[in-house]
């Protein structure tokens, strides 16, 4: 099944008409309610709405090159619209049709519009003159569609009158002298009916030309799609596509592939093979009938309109399958495996995979194995297939045909397949939830039951797998068969390892999880737009593509845009400034980009200053975003180096405390608030010189003075006094005087402002009596007036002396911030920064490959043991059922009921899977595998005699019932464990039981006793056959089984020997020696005592007759040991006595009873202990070596 992928969906009124814009991602939809919608299907937004029509709009079409749209509706009007947003409007309306409009279309080069209508006419209009220039009459019912030929002067129309017509309009091109309206007669001379295509037996809804071939496609109410071919002179029906079970609304040729797409009122969109006219695929909607279909002229995009909206879909996955190894990209295009060299850009085809899976489906994944030069490819068709093929040497592919993978490809079913080691690959079967590890000869070496419902598997590092489940990803160790780690994530679709396999990117539809090797650390990125692909950059940055961007992502989760895309691409590798990718048609492309931004961020993360510096030196392209980023991430000092704008520089400088830069920028800005902030920052850092500067600039005298006081700068303080004087500010003067300890000056200020009392006291307290008197005088007072003023004594207060020359020093600060960069930038030593070296990203580094080999070796050891186990090994059987105990309950997939139900897994398939027993495979009707099992386990080669048993077991395992009248009866499967309902445990009924075989064996034994040896021989042979196909359920049963096989063999051997003896006695009466030998051998078959007595008595008789009394006596003694009847005892005693009298043997025979021996079942001769012999793999009967490769004459099956 190929894939139909819905890209966009909208809900609306019924959609009757659809058209793709040829270049922009726009789709026009005509609705039943009279509205025309203009959708941007890529962004999923409604761009515009045109609502001037009254009644359903069935016809819409874009102009091939101009921003125009033509529409037609049930209001009989044709309207032409300018769709540019700035002047969106209806340009003009064409009147003339007398009934509903069905389709409208612009001509590809002429200024013509064609329309058709229920008024039974087709009209062609000149869009420049806005006149009708032709009326095509002839249809005798509604005309449902009419379209121009893409190149020629032809028109094809479809009508309810059950015909499709092709019209020649070449006359029209020559120019019409009569362009005025209303003169219909003249038009008919320009356009003539060329062909009338009859064949549909109901009305025809749609007819269209093939874009390049002389083909026409029509869709009709008779539920068929017809293909017509035309030549210069005639047109004829080629074939029909049947399958729609209601009216077909429209059918289109796929613009690129040999496909037909159709839709109908049976609520389906169907895809057909144009060449074979067979249905390929059906897409179904529950409740909506489809009314119209449109194909994008260039892209793999289709749109279909239905009862409650529209869908845009593509027909196949476009993501090409690819794998990267060192400098080579292996990828698949048009079903050819190709190799693209990243360095030389050589691009060659290596292998054809055309015969792999459905021809319409591109392979899904490719896994490359450099050691074997082999690929494993998977495809989604046929419920998932994989193929393992070796790639031919590129040189051998030169010239001539490429090798086709079917030559030596090994296939199997599986949904996901990848190489996990040099000679191992893993295959996931999604339905059975089993992962098989296979070797290069495609045989299973290990089977794994994944611990979670697994949808896809990926390489998980050495001997590990990554299992993608519905809500998590699991890292799974193949060898230990256990889960190593599990991370929650939406279903992971692609996995990319970085160059040294230390980090992995797990991509889902909208998230990327970056995890380390053992999943112990991980970060998650969310994308609103669908993620398409990704690749690791040399430096360990993950570059990924979404529908419309290429982005990067750092391991801690930072991400940003690298460039925008017109069309999605699939990244294969990123190296330096080049992105290598495959486009939607799987052609290799490169995109050059500027990695500066993310490289810088990465360097920042890793504290790689050299790298950062290099970037700083060499790149010019650093915008606001990176500064904001740096600031936000707490690296203002680094950001500082990129900033040109002084305001920002100042801010950054303040933030990171870079005072030099701050001063520099503050000077150029020179605004008080800057200086103030600078002063604050500088004060914090103890740089009082800058604080001083800032205060000076802002004329902040108070603070300045205080600063001088704090730093003990007396000179400056006195200077400040002078300044204060000059400013005439008494407060400032007083402050400065106080700070400077200048009493005279203080008094002077106080006097100046008329505060004589204070001035007086100050003078007095400082022992300046004279001055005090002077002040008193000036105040017009005498000493007596101030008698009541207490005496304070001499004040000792004065500013503390400066101990350290702080004035000249600034507070020392740590040089952390201004380390590497400032030094580097200042010294210029890294002027020609060395570009750091990068590691090339290889799919598998050499080291990990070696590790894989080791692991593979381990596997091989196991494999060597395997063949030894086989046969009816019930230990294996036990393990088998045990492994089912931890089987995961099958997660019930939510599936819609309805017509799209795909067939499931039949019961018999479960039987085959659930049982290693040949009998169960036979019951399942899987004769092929049953034979393989018998052949492998027991060496059976001759199946002919088993046929009745096979058929009867199969017949006995199925029964039929007809619950519903007149439906074919339902096949029901008979189980031996009817109470079991888990599909993983069901087993077929056991048609033959050991019990019933035992009774058959007893019949045989009775025959022996009754001397019916021929019957007995047949019975034992049948027992041996039946035992091949019996169901064993326990160890004790297995033992019983083995015993019974042995007994049956011995009896069969004995009976056969005795029959041979009788033949010899009859046919070669002189051959006494042989006669005696055979009689003796018979007594050496392991028989039950009662039968052994018969053998011994027969031997005694024969030997006595031949006068071999010694031997006869031996047999008689053995007979006596068995305690027979009294009568027999008597005869035996006589024989013993005779033997003792005459202990001789008249005939020399090859019989040494004292050495143990086996009897060759073919020649009936003794094989004494120590002589070479071979064994039958089933019955263990012995044979002389010369019979190697022959059929066992006992069972006749081995």
């Amino acid at each position, binding site marked *: 099944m190929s894939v139909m992928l819905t890209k966009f969906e909208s809900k609306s009124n019924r959609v009757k008409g659809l058209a793709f814009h040829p270049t922009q991602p726009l789709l026009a939809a005509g609705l039943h309610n009279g509205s025309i919608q203009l959708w941007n299907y890529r962004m999923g937004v409604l761009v515009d709405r045109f609502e001037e029509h009254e009644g359903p709009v069935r016809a819409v079409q874009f102009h091939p090159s101009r921003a125009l749209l033509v529409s037609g509706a049930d209001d009989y009007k044709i309207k032409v619209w300018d769709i540019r947003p700035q002047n969106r409007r209806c340009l003009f309306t064409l009147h003339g049709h007398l009934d509903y409009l069905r389709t409208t279309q612009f001509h590809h080069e002429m200024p013509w519009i064609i329309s058709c209508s229920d008024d039974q006419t087709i009209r062609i209009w000149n869009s420049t003159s806005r006149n009708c220039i032709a009326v095509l009459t002839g249809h005798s019912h509604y005309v449902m569609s009419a379209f121009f030929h893409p190149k020629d002067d032809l028109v094809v129309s479809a009508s309810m009158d059950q015909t499709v017509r092709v019209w020649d309009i070449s006359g029209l091109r020559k120019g019409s002298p009569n362009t005025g309206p209303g003169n219909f007669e003249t038009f008919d001379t320009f356009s003539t009916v060329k062909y009338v295509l009859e064949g549909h037996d109901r009305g025809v809804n749609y007819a269209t030309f093939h874009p390049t071939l002389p083909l026409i496609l029509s869709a009709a109410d008779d539920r068929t799609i017809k293909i017509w071919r035309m030549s210069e002179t005639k047109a004829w029906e080629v074939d029909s596509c049947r399958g729609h*079970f*209601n009216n077909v609304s429209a059918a289109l040729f796929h613009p690129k592939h040999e496909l037909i797409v159709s839709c109908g009122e049976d*609520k389906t969109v169907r895809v057909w093979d144009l060449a074979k006219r067979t249905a390929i695929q059906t897409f*179904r909607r*529950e409740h909506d009938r489809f009314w119209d279909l449109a194909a994008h002229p260039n892209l793999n995009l289709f749109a279909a309109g239905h009862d409650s909206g529209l869908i845009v879909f593509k027909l196949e996955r476009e993501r090409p399958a690819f794998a990267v190894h060192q400098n080579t990209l292996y990828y698949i295009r048009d079903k050819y495996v190709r190799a693209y060299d990243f360095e030389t850009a050589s691009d060659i085809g290596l292998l054809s995979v055309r015969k792999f899976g459905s021809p319409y489906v591109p392979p899904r994944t490719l896994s490359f194995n450099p050691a074997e030069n082999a690929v494993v490819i998977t495809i989604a068709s046929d419920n998932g297939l994989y193929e393992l093929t070796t790639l031919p040497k590129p040189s051998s592919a030169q010239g001539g045909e490429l090798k086709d993978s079917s030559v030596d490809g090994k296939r199997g079913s599986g949904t996901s397949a990848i190489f996990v080691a040099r000679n191992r690959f893993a295959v996931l079967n999604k339905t059975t939830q089993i992962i098989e590890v296979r070797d290069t000869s495609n045989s299973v070496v290990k089977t794994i039951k994944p611990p979670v419902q697994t949808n896809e598997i990926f390489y998980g590092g050495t001997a590990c797998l990554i299992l993608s489940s519905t809500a998590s990803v699991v890292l799974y160790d193949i060898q230990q068969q256990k889960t190593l780690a599990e991370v929650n994530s939406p279903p992971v679709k692609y996995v990319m390892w970085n160059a040294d396999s230390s980090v992995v990117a797990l991509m889902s539809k909208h998230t990327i999880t970056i995890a380390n090797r053992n999943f112990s650390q991980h970060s998650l990125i969310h994308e609103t737009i669908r993620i398409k692909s990704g690749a690791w950059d040399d430096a360990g940055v993950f570059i990924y593509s979404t529908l419309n961007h290429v982005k990067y992502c750092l391991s801690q989760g930072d991400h940003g845009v690298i460039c925008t895309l017109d069309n999605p691409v699939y990244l294969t590798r990123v190296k330096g400034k080049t992105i290598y990718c495959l486009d939607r048609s799987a052609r290799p492309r490169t995109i050059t980009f500027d990695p500066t931004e993310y490289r810088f961020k990465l360097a920042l993360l890793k504290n790689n200053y050299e790298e950062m510096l290099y970037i700083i030196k060499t790149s010019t392209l650093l915008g606001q975003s990176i500064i904001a980023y740096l600031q936000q991430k707490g690296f203002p000092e680094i950001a500082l180096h990129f900033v040109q704008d002084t305001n920002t520089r100042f801010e950054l400088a303040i933030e990171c405390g870079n005072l030099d830069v701050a001063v520099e920028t503050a000077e150029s800005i020179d605004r008080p608030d800057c200086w103030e902030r600078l002063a604050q920052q500088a004060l914090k850092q103890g740089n009082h010189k800058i604080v001083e500067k800032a205060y000076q600039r802002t004329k902040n005298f108070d603070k300045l003075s205080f600063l001088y006081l704090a730093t003990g700068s007396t000179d400056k303080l006195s200077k400040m006094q002078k300044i204060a004087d000059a400013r005439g500010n008494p407060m400032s003067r007083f402050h400065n005087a106080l700070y400077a300890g200048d009493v005279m000056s203080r008094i002077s200020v106080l006097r100046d402002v008329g505060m004589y009392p204070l001035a007086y006291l100050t003078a007095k307290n400082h022992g300046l009596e004279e001055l005090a008197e002077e002040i008193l005088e000036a105040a017009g007072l005498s000493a007596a007036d101030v008698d009541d003023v207490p005496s304070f004594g001499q004040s000792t207060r004065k500013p503390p002396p400066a101990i350290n020359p702080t004035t000249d020093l600034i507070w020392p600060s740590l040089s952390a911030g201004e380390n590497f960069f400032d030094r580097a930038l200042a010294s210029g030593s890294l002027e020609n920064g060395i570009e750091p070296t990068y590691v090339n990203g290889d799919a598998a580094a050499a080291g990990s490959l070696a590790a894989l080999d080791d692991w593979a070796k381990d596997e091989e050891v196991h494999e060597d043991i395997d063949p030894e186990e086989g046969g009816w090994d019930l230990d294996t059987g036990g393990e088998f059922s045990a492994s089912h105990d931890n089987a995961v309950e099958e997660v019930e997939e939510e*599936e819609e*009921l*309805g*017509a799209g*139900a795909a*067939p*499931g*897994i*039949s019961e018999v398939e479960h039987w085959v899977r659930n049982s290693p027993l040949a009998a169960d495979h036979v019951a399942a*009707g899987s*004769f*092929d595998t049953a*034979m393989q099992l018998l*052949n492998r386990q027991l060496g059976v*080669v001759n*199946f002919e005699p088993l046929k009745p048993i*096979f*058929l009867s077991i*199969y*017949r*006995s*395992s*199925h*029964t*039929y*019932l*007809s*619950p*519903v*009248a*007149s*439906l*074919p*009866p*339902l*096949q*029901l499967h*008979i*189980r031996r464990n*009817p109470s079991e*309902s888990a599909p993983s445990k069901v087993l077929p009924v056991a*048609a*033959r*039981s050991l019990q*019933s075989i035992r009774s058959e064996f007893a019949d045989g034994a009775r025959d022996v006793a009754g001397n019916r040896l021929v019957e007995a021989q047949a019975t034992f042979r049948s027992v041996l056959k039946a035992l091949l196909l019996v169901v064993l359920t326990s160890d004790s049963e297995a033992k019983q089984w083995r015993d019974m096989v042995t007994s049956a063999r011995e009896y069969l051997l004995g009976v056969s020997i005795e029959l041979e003896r009788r033949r010899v006695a009859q046919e070669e009466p002189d051959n006494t020696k042989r006669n005696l030998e055979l009689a003796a051998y018979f007594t050496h078959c392991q028989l039950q005592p009662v039968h052994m007595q018969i053998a011994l008595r027969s031997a005694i008789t024969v030997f006595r007759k031949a006068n071999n009394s010694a031997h006869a006596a031996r047999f008689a003694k053995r007979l006596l040991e068995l305690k027979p009847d009294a009568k027999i005892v008597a005869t035996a005693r006589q024989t013993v006595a005779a033997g003792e009298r005459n202990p001789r043997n008249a005939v020399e025979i090859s019989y040494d009873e004292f050495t143990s021996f086996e009897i060759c*079942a*073919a*020649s009936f*001769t003794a094989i004494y202990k120590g002589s070479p012999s071979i064994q039958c793999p089933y019955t263990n009967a012995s*044979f002389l070596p010369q019979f190697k*490769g*022959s*059929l*066992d*004459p006992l069972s006749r099956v081995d």
Partner: protein
Amino acid sequence: MDSSELYHVKQQFVLGAYKSLIDLSLPDPNSPDYTPTLVYQARSHIALNDPKAALQLAPTGSENVALKAVVALAKFVAAEEAADDKEALLEELRDLSLEIDGDDVEGTERDKATVRVLAGTAFARAGEVEEALETLGADTEDLEAVFVIVQIYLSINRPDLAKKEYERSKRWAEDDLLLQLIESIIGLSTGKDENPSLSSPHVLTARGVTRILRNEFSEAKSDLDESLEQHKNDPDALAASAVASGLVSTKKSEADVDELWARLASQYPTHPSVVDVAKKSDLFDEAMAKYTVPAIASAA
């Protein structure tokens, strides 16, 4: 609500008591029961593989959609036997099932539902599983349609979907014999068995088959023998009886098996089990040919 007569007719039909249903006399032509009863009788004839009798029964020229559908189905089954062109008849049923969506058709809702069931049956017989399911409708509220849908699901090995459909129908359907039957049929295929306990040959066969599935072979054999006594050559009973005899595995039963198989194979050469076993026989020969058989070891 159906009249008790019609209810009885329906039960008979569901239980597969086709013979006794055919023997019933028809109600008055003006009775509302007339058409449904007629349709059930015609369907019984078809179920007994006698489409010609069904065609004789149905009045010609009736505009009732259910009758038209039953005639089309009868013709279809007859054409299958004669290997005639069946496509035209399928087309007729297709048209009918589209027609009933319109307004101007003659027939009650029950008739329309019958059309869907009959068309679905024909499509399923023709192997058009997808179309059958679509016709019967994913959201049907007609138990007969559900019954057909369930069997179709089971025939394509989707017991999961069959169960889902059954669970869905339990939500709207009243407890009904048909519903129980649906449940037991699903049970037969999935291992959770029911034990139908009514007596008509059809039900006896069903019980016999159920017992085979429960590994109660001797009991199954007696049910099937009884069923065969009542309805001598019911193919399902014959086939099941052969299976049961084979599994009882006594000397006598082995002879029975061959006799029963011979009967089944000669009378119903197209019964799926006969066809299937023949196919398997060929498969065996094909698989066997992969092994080369060496000469028998012998001293000569």
